C-alpha cells in the first residue's frame, strides 16, 4: 500500500478526522492540532504496520531545534571550527530528509516562521518510513 495513504489513514483514525484533511504538506501540529500522545500512538502503529523500528525522536524531528542551535553556535564562533554546513549537518542527523526539504525547514525556522512554529509535516513521516523500509529491504 502507498505509504502516504497508509499514514493518512492511521492519522485520520487516531485524530478522528477526515482523510482529505491530511495532505503531504499538512503541518502536523499547527493544522491538525496533534498532541504528543497522538504521535506516540502513530509511532506504535507505524512500527506495527510497516515493521520498522521507529525512533520517536527521529521520526518526529524532536531534536531539530537543538541541532539548529548547535549549527548557529558553531557558526557564530568560527575560530573554534571551520564552520558548519547546516544542510549537511541536518542530513547526517536525519538521513531520511531530502536536501530540498532540509533547506525548506531551515528557511522556516530562521526566517519566515517564528522559532516556535511547527515544522513537522506529514511528508516527513512518509519519508522516514520510506527510507527505513528501503534500508531494511537492502540489508
Amino acid at each position, binding site marked *: 500500500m502507498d505509504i502516504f495513504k497508509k499514514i493518512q489513514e492511521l492519522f485520520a483514525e487516531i485524530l478522528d478526522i477526515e482523510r482529505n484533511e491530511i495532505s503531504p504538506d499538512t503541518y502536523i501540529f499547527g493544522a491538525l492540532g496533534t498532541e504528543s*500522545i497522538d504521535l*506516540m*500512538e502513530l509511532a506504535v502503529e507505524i512500527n*506495527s504496520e510497516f*515493521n520498522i523500528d521507529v525512533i520517536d525522536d527521529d521520526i518526529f524531528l524532536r531534536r531539530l531545534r537543538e541541532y539548529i542551535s548547535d549549527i548557529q553556535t558553531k557558526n557564530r564562533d568560527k575560530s573554534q571550527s571551520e564552520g558548519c554546513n547546516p544542510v549537511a549537518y541536518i542530513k547526517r542527523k536525519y538521513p531520511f530528509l531530502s536536501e530540498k526539504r532540509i533547506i525548506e525547514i531551515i528557511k522556516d525556522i530562521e526566517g519566515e516562521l517564528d522559532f516556535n512554529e511547527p515544522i513537522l509535516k506529514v511528508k516527513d513521516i512518509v519519508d522516514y518510513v520510506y527510507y527505513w523500509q528501503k534500508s531494511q529491504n537492502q540489508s
Partner: protein
Amino acid sequence: MQLKFSGNRVLILGGTCEMALCLAEHLIKSGLYPVLSTRDEKGKKHIEDSLSAFDGKFETVYLNFSDVDSIKTLFPPNTIADSHPDYLVDFAHGDLESLVASETTHDIDLYFSENISFRAEIIKAVARAMLKKRKGRLMFISSVAVLRPNLGQGFYSASKLASEALYKNIGLELGSRGITTVSLRPGYIDAGRGRNFIKQNNKIIETIPIKRAIEPSEVAETILFFLSESARNFNAVEITMDGGISASKYTL
C-alpha cells in the same frame, strides 16, 4: 460480587516470588491467563513445578532486569496484538538492605539501574503494546516502606517511590487511551522476605493495628479486584493496604 475482566493475558513481572505464584493461581481460577517472567531456567522450573496443577493455563517468559535486550524477547517483531498483555502486575524488586551512608557507588548504581531505569524501559514497552489495543491496566506492587521505611530500606523505598512515579505518569499520560495504573502499598506480608523479617522481629506484629501480617492470598484477591472492571476508575493512584501501620505513631 462477581468480578468481570475486560482482558485475558496478565504479564507478571517477578514471576517466581511466592506472591506472584499465588496470584497466578487466583488468575487461572478466575479464567485469566498469567504469563510469568523469570530470569533463568531455575526460575522457570520453579514456576512450572509450583503451578503443575494448571498445565497449559499459564506460560513463562524470560526477562532479566539487568539485560535491557531481554525486553525484546517479550515483544518480538511481527507479533500480533492478541499476544500482547492486557494487564501487567509488577512484583519485581531487587533486595538491597543497607544503610544509605554505607553502600558502595557500584551497588547503588546497579540497584537503581535495575530497579528504576530498567523498569522505565519495560513499562514503556508494555504501554506501547497496550496502546495498540487502546486498553490496558498496569499494577505496581510497591510497599508501605515508601511511607515508613525501616533502617536499611533507603534504597529500596527510594526505588519503589521512583517506580510509583513512573506508573503514576503512565496513568496520567495514557488514561485517555484506556491505559490505567494503580500502585499497591502492602504492609508486612507473610511471604518471602516479609516472612523472614517477621520471624527475626516477631514483636513487629504488635505495631500493626490489625495485629497480624497480610496473607499472600489476601494480596492476590486485592490485585484481582484492581484488575477487574469494578476498579476501572482507580487510576494514577497509590493504595495503601497495611492493616493501619502507616496511620499510627506507634513503633517498637
